[in-house]
């Protein structure tokens, strides 16, 4: 065989361009690394693996082996779910979808080298990186509280042990004692979450400790589904719940975890349980990756890509995306848009236009479910709301019971959509 120099050079150039083109990587399949196996990350990993049918190498980095959902954790506080029913493993994602699940923390992102460093020391290369790390808390947001106090004053705003601790504390309250909550400022994970929690704690106390009181210090003027919750609290838990809004000092609070006091606008209250839900920010790894602006990570609505790095996408609570609330449903919805876009970019598959939706159900009392929802579209500026609805006050018992049943169906549905 005689080498013709022109042909040889031509071949080399063609090979080089093949290497550069992500769609046909000479050294192997395109690689997607997903950080965080929650509502956003698990869904994105599953959809990319499922829809690309092996054409993309998907790695999911998640420290915990069992994901305990925050959604429905309030129902656990109310005695409507057990903790086991809220825990889900990654086994099916690994076994049936071929996802490489690594139980470790991501501790570094090198955006130039396109690698992720794990706490265990290894390094993962990526073509696209998806970050869905959820939330962390803003330091110093509630005077007197930091994470070292979370055993005395739990936040229970991540699933699992914190929720169990909070429930144990509620169950151990003295008769006629006080349960206090420091509610978070906007924006935060699950807008109706604190108020559904109040309802569920009230439900439990009405059963076991009917003279107990609930005190809420709230920095916000108003909150999600407020008329529905207030109607429910008046009807079902009359005289039990007092909410102090910003007009009466609800934004001016401090706590003393040792003394078990909550001070609102200078008034010191002895409390038996204090659920401190501090101000939130994107999970720390987003900050480490250098893609946050202030507390959150800004993204392009069309594909959830970071405004600071086109090879990184941010999903769920960590993202500053526009009008969608920070919810599991939203994270799951955003993940599917992102998965479709990432697959298109890496394999040339069709990219369909982004569309988003959210519905949040809350339980107020036994068989008393309400909901709020909206649809959204991608604009150049943000994810923008298109249409929405909210349950009405004064609905029939039958409708409320049906809404609760629907929420149970939704829970099973989203879990199947996340974990296969």
């Amino acid at each position: 065989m005689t080498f013709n120099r022109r042909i040889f050079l031509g071949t080399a150039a063609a090979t080089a361009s093949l290497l550069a083109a992500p769609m046909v990587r000479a050294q192997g399949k395109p690689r997607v690394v997903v950080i965080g196996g929650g509502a956003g990350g698990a869904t994105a990993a599953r959809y990319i693996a499922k829809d690309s049918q092996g054409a993309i190498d998907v790695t999911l980095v998640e420290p915990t082996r069992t994901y305990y959902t925050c959604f429905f954790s309030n129902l656990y506080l109310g005695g409507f779910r057990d903790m086991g029913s809220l825990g889900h493993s990654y086994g099916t994602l690994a076994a049936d979808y071929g996802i490489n699940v690594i139980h470790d923390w991501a501790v570094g992102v090198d955006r130039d080298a396109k690698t992720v460093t794990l706490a265990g020391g290894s390094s993962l290369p990526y073509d696209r990186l998806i970050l869905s790390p959820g939330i962390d808390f803003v330091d110093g947001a509630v005077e007197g509280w930091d994470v070292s106090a979370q055993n005395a004053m739990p936040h229970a705003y991540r699933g699992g042990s914190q929720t169990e601790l909070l429930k144990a504390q509620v169950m151990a309250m003295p008769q006629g004692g006080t349960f206090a909550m420091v509610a978070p400022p906007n924006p935060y994970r699950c807008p109706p979450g604190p108020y559904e929690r109040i309802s569920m704690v009230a439900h439990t106390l009405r059963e076991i400790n009917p003279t107990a009181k609930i005190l809420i210090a709230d920095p916000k003027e108003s909150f999600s589904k407020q008329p529905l919750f207030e109607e429910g609290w008046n009807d079902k838990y009359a005289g039990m719940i007092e909410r102090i809004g910003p007009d009466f000092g609800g934004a001016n609070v401090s706590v003393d975890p040792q003394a078990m006091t909550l001070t609102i606008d200078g008034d010191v209250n002895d409390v038996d349980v204090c659920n401190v839900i501090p101000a939130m920010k994107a999970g720390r790894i987003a900050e480490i990756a250098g893609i946050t602006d202030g507390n959150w990570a800004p993204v392009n609505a069309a594909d959830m890509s970071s405004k600071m790095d086109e090879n990184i996408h941010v999903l769920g609570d960590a993202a500053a995306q526009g009008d969608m609330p920070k919810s599991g449903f939203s994270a799951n919805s955003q993940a599917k848009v992102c998965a479709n876009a990432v697959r298109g970019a890496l394999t040339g598959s069709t990219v369909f236009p982004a569309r988003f939706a959210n519905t949040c159900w809350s339980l107020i009392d036994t068989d008393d479910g309400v909901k709020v929802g909206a649809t959204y579209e991608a604009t150049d500026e943000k994810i923008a709301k298109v249409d929405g609805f909210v349950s009405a006050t004064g609905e029939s018992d039958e409708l409320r019971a049906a809404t609760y049943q629907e929420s149970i169906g939704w829970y099973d549905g989203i879990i199947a959509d996340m974990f296969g």
Partner: protein
Amino acid sequence: MRRHLLLVAFLSAADGGFAEVGGDPERGEKVFGQCSSCHQVGQGAVDRIGPQLNHIFDRAAGAAEGFRYSAGFERAAAGGLVWTYDTLDRFIENPRTLVSNTRMSFRGISDQQDRDDVLAYLRQFSASPANIPEAAPTAAAVDHSVAPEVLAIVGDPAYGEYLSGECTSCHQASGVGGGIPSITNWPADDFVVAMHAYKDGVRAHPVMQMMAGRLSNEEIAALAAYFESIQ
């Protein structure tokens, strides 16, 4: 194996017979209204979202020929479930207590009289008592009319698969129902009609009105084509 044993144990308990035979079939026809969006019964009844219910009494579960049952139902059938008065009574009281993971996302009929009545109605379409003539079909699979040209649109299942991501945050792709109805394996026409009924505000559910409200005719057809195709 364990599941089979449990099922058999459960059925023998049910066979103890707490359901009284003796409902009012006329009233039962009205009660059946809530079943009729999925099941037909009577002359000319065909399988729709659920199997037709003629000769349901004493039929082995999962045995309607040509109907694609869920895996849950097939398991129950393999475990020897037969539709007697008592098993049907138990099933319609709460489908999921008898057959796990059924697509039948029906909350159940809690009132014993309502169950007796609807079973009396259904009994008319089974061999026993054979001397009652078959009535005209009462089941309407659809509750809304859609222009023929809209029904004629041929949907793109690939686009439907992408759009289905909007549905599967709630509806399970495996077809398991409960709280949120199953939408897999529907005849495409039924799917299209149902979605237009939401879009036009005829069906009342606010989430579905919102979701259907922004779907074009082509998108609805694409979803119908996709959901019809998956088991």
